[in-house]
């Protein structure tokens, strides 16, 4: 009788270890995929906003303020967020978002790329880093206003 009890303990120990390992791995990947999916949506929304936004290029500061509005839209879902706004994805900050304009021969924006840089997803046991993806490019279709300043 005693030896049977020992068997059951060992069996339980082995099977529980296997199960817990699988479940932990499943959670990690599931959570990371969930965050990645949200990143794709956020970057897509930001790039679409950038594509349709008025490009004001009076000074470098105006261009930077426009880029900041795009980064805010990716992170907060709002180009002019409130001071206490929460990011749509935990720990995502505007500095994780890169906005890159590709200008044509006349210096007019042709396309805009929005990319995630150096963002780490903390999936409890392991951390997954995303650098350079997701990345989305949209054609620029907005109004080009080289002489205007950001309001």
């Amino acid at each position, binding site marked *: 009788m005693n030896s*049977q009890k020992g*068997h*059951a303990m060992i*069996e339980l120990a082995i*099977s529980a270890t296997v*199960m817990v390992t*699988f*479940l932990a*791995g*499943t959670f990690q*990947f*599931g959570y990371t*995929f*969930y965050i*990645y*999916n949200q990143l*794709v*949506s956020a*970057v*897509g929304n930001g*790039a*679409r*906003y950038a*594509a*349709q*936004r*008025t490009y004001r290029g009076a000074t470098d500061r105006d261009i930077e303020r426009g880029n900041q509005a795009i980064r805010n839209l990716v992170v907060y879902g709002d*180009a002019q967020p409130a001071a206490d706004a929460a990011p749509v994805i935990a720990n995502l900050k505007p500095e994780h978002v890169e906005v890159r304009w590709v200008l044509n021969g006349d210096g007019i924006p042709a396309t805009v*790329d929005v990319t995630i840089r150096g963002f780490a997803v903390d999936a409890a046991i392991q951390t997954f880093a995303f650098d*350079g*993806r*997701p*990345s*989305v*490019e*949209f*054609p620029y*279709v*907005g*109004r080009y206003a080289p002489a205007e300043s950001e309001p």
Partner: protein
Amino acid sequence: MRRPTEKGFVLIAMSAAMFLLLAVIGMVFDLGRVYITRNEAQVFTDAASMAAAQQLDGTPAGLARARAAVAALPNHWNLGTKDFEGVVVEFSADNEHWKPEPAADELPSLRYARVTAPGNHVEIMFLRAVGGPETLTVPARAVASTGLVRLTQ
């Protein structure tokens, strides 16, 4: 010694549990990738249809530029690793009748571009072990018109 009826119980229980576990892992891992692909493909077709519609100007050159603009988009799928393949670009004057190769006399009336990304075959890894398919295809499609929306802000 165990009684005969108890023998192999753990084996059977573990097999049943493993089957269920594989199904759960498959749901999380494989369907997770499927949903990401759907999202990536939708963002790509949105951007591509805008890129194509923007180039339409009633000339054959505009049509060629529209196709080139779609082909030039660097957006990827499969967690940002694969190119979109077999992308179909079609054009229409009324948003109902679509043609990949419009006739010369139809060119001036074209107002819409439609982009379809049909070939996004997500390889299924875990659900396959519990009776799922080998691949799941996640197509996406988007339409854009030549009068693209511009934000005033």
